[in-house]
């Protein structure tokens, strides 16, 4: 994710590490644009850390600033400095270090395409190129309607679902040029296609508030899907093959005198993944199972609770 800049005189592209670039601070910044409720949120963040360690609140507070303004503004820097008793230079130095703090107003949806080696070779490079064509924008640029900001990202930790795209950091797995183009078309048309894994899509500002650590019942999305076929491949195959880890439920206690601990581990029902896990369809939405893989004898739901 190097920032590529064409040198006017030589015509060559020069490479610039974003961590060495500076924040565009065109004005001193006014902390008072953040009202009482944001100040209360800032205090709630500070309270998560031990007394006297308020600076730990800086990273979440910069996310909070983005949840209000869509990027790290001069006002946001002044606000963090004000609340945490830091200099603006100290705050800006931190803000410029991290990729997720944006230098320019960010669109309603931040579309990130993984172009690291694995996703890149499996199609991520083509997907990114196609999106720049479709949206007529490049790295860290935003469509004129303010809907979409595009970036190519480093490894998003979903390599078993490669190639991946995230929208406001929710996963859209196993993408193709066609599916990714369709995704941004739908976003621009005002739709909010459901992510493969993650909660229902919200706006960039709303997701930044979550990253700052503010959740309510809706944004916690307890029912949202966090799994998929690759995640469950190993456990399903284990059930199919009848493989289990050594049991610890019925294993005799190791005894120095008898050497019982060296005997072959016994398989116990309690440790065997449920055959039900294999029979269920692979989950598109956390396919509910009646019993747990490790405990077929007991329903996974609390007693008395029904689906």
């Amino acid at each position: 994710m190097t920032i590529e800049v064409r040198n006017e005189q030589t015509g060559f592209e020069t490479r610039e590490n974003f961590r060495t670039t500076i924040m565009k601070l065109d004005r001193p910044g006014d902390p008072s644009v953040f009202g009482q409720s944001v100040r209360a949120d800032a205090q709630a963040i500070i309270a998560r850390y031990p007394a006297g360690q308020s600076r730990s609140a800086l990273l979440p507070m910069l996310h909070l600033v983005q949840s209000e303004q869509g990027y790290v503004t001069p006002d946001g820097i002044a606000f963090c400095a004000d609340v945490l008793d830091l200099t603006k230079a100290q705050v800006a130095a931190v803000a410029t270090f991290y990729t997720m703090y944006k230098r320019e107003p960010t669109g309603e949806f931040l579309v990130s395409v993984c172009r690291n080696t694995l996703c890149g070779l499996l199609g991520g490079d083509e997907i990114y190129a196609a999106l720049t064509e479709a949206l007529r924008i490049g790295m860290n640029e935003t469509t004129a309607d303010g809907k979409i900001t595009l970036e190519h990202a480093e490894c998003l930790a979903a390599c078993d679902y490669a190639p991946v795209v995230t929208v406001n950091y929710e996963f859209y797995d196993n993408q193709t040029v066609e599916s990714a183009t369709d995704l941004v078309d739908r976003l621009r048309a005002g739709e909010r296609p459901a992510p493969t894994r993650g909660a229902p899509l919200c706006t960039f500002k709303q997701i930044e508030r979550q990253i700052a650590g503010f959740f309510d019942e809706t944004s916690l999305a307890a029912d949202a899907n966090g799994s998929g076929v690759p995640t469950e491949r190993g456990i399903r195959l284990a059930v199919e093959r009848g493989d289990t880890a050594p049991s610890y439920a019925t294993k005799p206690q190791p005894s120095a005198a008898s050497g019982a601990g060296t005997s072959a581990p016994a398989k116990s029902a309690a440790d065997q993944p449920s055959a039900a896990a294999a029979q269920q369809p692979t989950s598109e939405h956390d396919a509910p199972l009646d019993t747990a893989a490790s405990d077929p004898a007991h329903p996974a739901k609390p007693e008395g609770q029904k689906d």
Partner: protein
Amino acid sequence: MPLTPVLTKRFGTNQPWLIDNYEQLDGYAGLRKALTMEPDALIALVKDSNLRGRGGAGFPTGMKWQFIPQNDGNPHYVVINADEGEPGTCRDLPLMMNDPHSMIEGIVIACYAVRANHAFVYIRGEAVHAIRRVSGAVAEAYAKGYLGTDVLGSGFTVDITVHGGAGAYICGEETALLDSLEGKRGQPRLKPPFPATNGLYDAPTVVNNVGTLASVPYIVLGGAEWFKEMGPEGSPGPCIYSLSGRVTNPGQYEAPMGSTLRELLELAGGMSRGKQLKFWTPGGSSTPMFTQEHLDIALDFDAAIKAGSMNGTSAVMIFDEDDCVVRATLKWIEFYEHESCGKCTPCREGNYWMAQVLERLEHGHGTMEDLETLLDASDNILGRSFCALGDGAASPVMSSLKYFRDEYVRHVEGKGCPFGARVLVGAAGH
């Protein structure tokens, strides 16, 4: 080789991230047992189990815990490194998204063992669904009395703070993570002193990976001998191998430490395009790549090092004969160039130049001298930077040149990539 699901055993069951469901599947049984034990006995148990850190380095966990000075009157902290971002690594996120309570249970046990009353889970900022799940799980655990004051009536108090990062791979390095958690630029600290004595807020601190702590409740329940029934004695336990790339069924396969790629590939249905295996990483891009000839190397912390690589994060990225190793290496070096924190000159400048050399090689403008330049630059990065990021960057360059020098030469002599030029410039010229 049988699969040995332990950490992944709840995947695919009914909403395993909810505390009621977790409790039904042995959930918090390990904690209940741990609270009846002396803290020192817990440290000894984890030491006996030979549990080694799942974050990549494989440092013995029990030893890390033992390093925490006791009765020193200072606060102690436990910090969980959930800043997963090593290329190829996709193991901690699914674990937190599906079974966050196993990590939380492990955290409470670790805090009890090292006499810490506050733990911080530093989750990669982009991993928003993991932040969501862990935050929800922490709230549930407070409500049920597993967190807060007087945990389960034991008199022990512990708090967990979930902390989202902001996009910097370097924060997976434990001292950079601590600086970041203190609200600073995430740059590594000089060691010694180590976090065990001078960690978060200069206090004694244990920094453990997600999978490491999630393993602890099972060790408490099963005992050290049970844990050592899986894998080799010196590097035991179940290991979640994350298979990705040119494999028919990519995914998470939990098998005993010391499994081989031949065994794993068989489980995962073989190569995806019917092509020959060409190169692969045993544990992320920072571990030197392996080839066909390493199919039977045992993938555990010790054996992988003996064979010239590392088990790392057990992130097995698989590439076949149609994948260009120069292009793969270029993309990895672009990653290290982007993620270098800039503190150490060899890493900051070395990756900057290596990316350019690799780029011209891939696009047909390279010379034979460039191959020596790459080796020279790698040699000047390796061992000459504060942290392992620099060493990691040297890995793909040195190992690809070791095994595939011919392919680099073909790029020079053929004035371009033998796998075909790829012009992927978008409309806006970016």
